[in-house]
């Protein structure tokens, strides 16, 4: 076996590892997550067109977007789908005052401190990170959430930012070249994402 052969094998192995590390096996991206209640964003956000903020109330003011209290569900489901068996866990929770154990879909490591409010404020659309939730029945994580992915936007925000008015819109398309619009917005909204370590790690 020649030296070059050895090099080739090593190279291929390295490349393979590279693929695995970015695969959804590792990142859990694009894996729909089973929930105690089969909540469908497609139905609520998509078909019914309920605004994201109706449930995720603290997205504009807090680090967490906020998972709604059972109460919020009951606001409507006191009137509709009263006896749907799938909603029993919700009613049970409301009756017994025990939380519904929703499974985390976007689970950052504990040493990463992400803040929704600032991203929303600077014109990063929900869709940009979470994908078309209005097309998801069971929700899944759209992106790898790996550090390089964060950097991609933090280093070139113009590729992703949108007008503040469109932050909560699903399927927004830039009227023209995103890069140009992006550059404008970056200037206008004073967007300068930091790439310091302490931006996310403390």
């Amino acid at each position, binding site marked *: 076996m020649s030296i070059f052969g050895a090099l080739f094998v090593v190279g291929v192995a*390295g490349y393979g590892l*590279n693929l695995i*590390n*970015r695969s959804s096996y590792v990142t859990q991206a694009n894996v729909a997550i089973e929930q105690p209640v089969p909540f469908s964003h497609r139905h609520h956000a998509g078909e019914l067109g309920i605004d994201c903020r109706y449930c995720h109330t603290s997205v504009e003011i807090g680090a967490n977007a906020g998972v709604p209290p059972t109460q919020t569900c009951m606001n409507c489901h006191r009137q509709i789908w009263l006896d749907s068996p799938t909603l029993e866990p919700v009613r049970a929770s409301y009756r017994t005052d025990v939380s519904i154990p929703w499974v985390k879909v976007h689970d950052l490591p504990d040493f990463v401190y992400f803040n929704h409010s600032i991203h929303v404020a600077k014109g990063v659309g929900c869709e940009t990170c979470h994908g078309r939730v209005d097309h998801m029945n069971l929700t899944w994580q759209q992106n*790898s959430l*790996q*550090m*390089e992915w964060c*950097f*991609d936007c933090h280093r070139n925000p113009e590729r992703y930012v949108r007008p503040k008015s469109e932050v909560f819109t699903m399927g927004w398309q830039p009227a023209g070249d995103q890069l140009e619009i992006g550059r404008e917005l970056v200037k206008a909204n004073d967007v300068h994402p930091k790439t310091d370590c302490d931006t996310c790690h403390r």
Partner: protein
Amino acid sequence: MSPPPTSPPDVTVRQPFIEPGHTFESVTDKIGAIVLDQGVRRGWLIGFTISFALLMLLLFALTNLVAQGIGIWGINVPVAWGFDIVNFVWWIGIGHAGTLISAILLLLRQQWRTSINRFAEAMTLFAVACAGIYPIAHLGRPWLAYWLFPYPNTMGMWPNFRSPLVWDVFAVSTYATVSFMFWFVGLIPDLATLRDRSESRVGRFIYGMLAMGWRGSALHWHRYETAYLLLAGLSTPLVVSVHTIVSFDFAVSVVPGWHATIFPPYFVAGAIYAGFAMVLTLAIPLRRYYGLQDFITLRHLDNMARVMLATGLVVAYGYMMETFVAWYSASNYEAFMVTNRFFGPYNKLYWALIFCNVIAPQVLWFKKLRLHQGWLFLTSIIVSIGMWLERYIIIVVSLHRDFLPSSWGMYAGTRWDWATFVGTMGLFMSLLFLFIRFLPMISIFEMRTMVPDAKVDEDAHAGGAH
């Protein structure tokens, strides 16, 4: 064979580097026999058993290290580097002689290298292997050591190329690779010899694999010589670079006692010093035990002793300069560092170091003593100890009292520090024992060229090499 001459022979008369009366066959038989015919000898077995036990101790110590955290070592703040880095530098230093002897002496046409280069190189490899353990083991989270390598990671970031530790990674790994290639290539013709002479099928098979189909044709020889010379040229700068870069770990920092421009040359000299000391420590008993006095003659010992003396003097100069610069720099931190070495809590170690590295080797001025194996052996051991102390002084004693008196502290190795240190010696010896048992510890084919009747070819192929 012939016991060491009681009265030293006159070395001034250029005496050959091989005792007279040897033919091609005798050389091959004599060296090959150690591997092929003698089988497992009692002395070897005892030695190997002890070394292997120590190797197990190493594994135990390292496992416990990972399990409990490096708190089991004596390190603290301010002294965050202790035995780990001391031993690292010490082993790396020892790992210098091999390549130096093989490469530089080869390029300098120093024929006397032939009989010692093989196991000197092996020793280098093993020493580097031991050294390599420490930088990884000393990490708080060793399983993340690979973060020091630049590779396309999902974090979208690179290692810090400004850090000497990253330079180390490259320096040491390159050195290890090249040394190995050099050693292995050097082995090929002898592996072929062993293949041809071995009686057992297993032996034939394994040596055959390793010999990589060597047939000894003129073409092979031609290519071989070229490759060997190239490798020699390649590894020569490494001899200097590795310890230079290792010395940067200290020279680049701000710590008084580390932050000195003299470090690179001073470290390299020290490394060669330690390296030759170790070669002698091994060569003297080996030639005795395997009766190789014909091949590793007193002249070899004499030459190595001279090299030791020379490098020893350079090192001594280094110590002087450190002290001088401390005064000359007019920095009170530097001045304090030196006074602390002289009179501080660790001053005994410092004076011991001075004795081992500066005073003791002066006996090598006397030919009588250079040719007296007992003395030589003793001196080489003393120097090895001295070089370890040197690193201890540089690392621990510089750290334990730096800038703010409020954070001064003391350091002492724990039993786990010692276990790891002794353990790496076990690793070193184990590898060495395996080597001398299964590979020719002296280059057969090169020795052949030393035999008087080879003189003609010698010139020829020397010419051919050009």
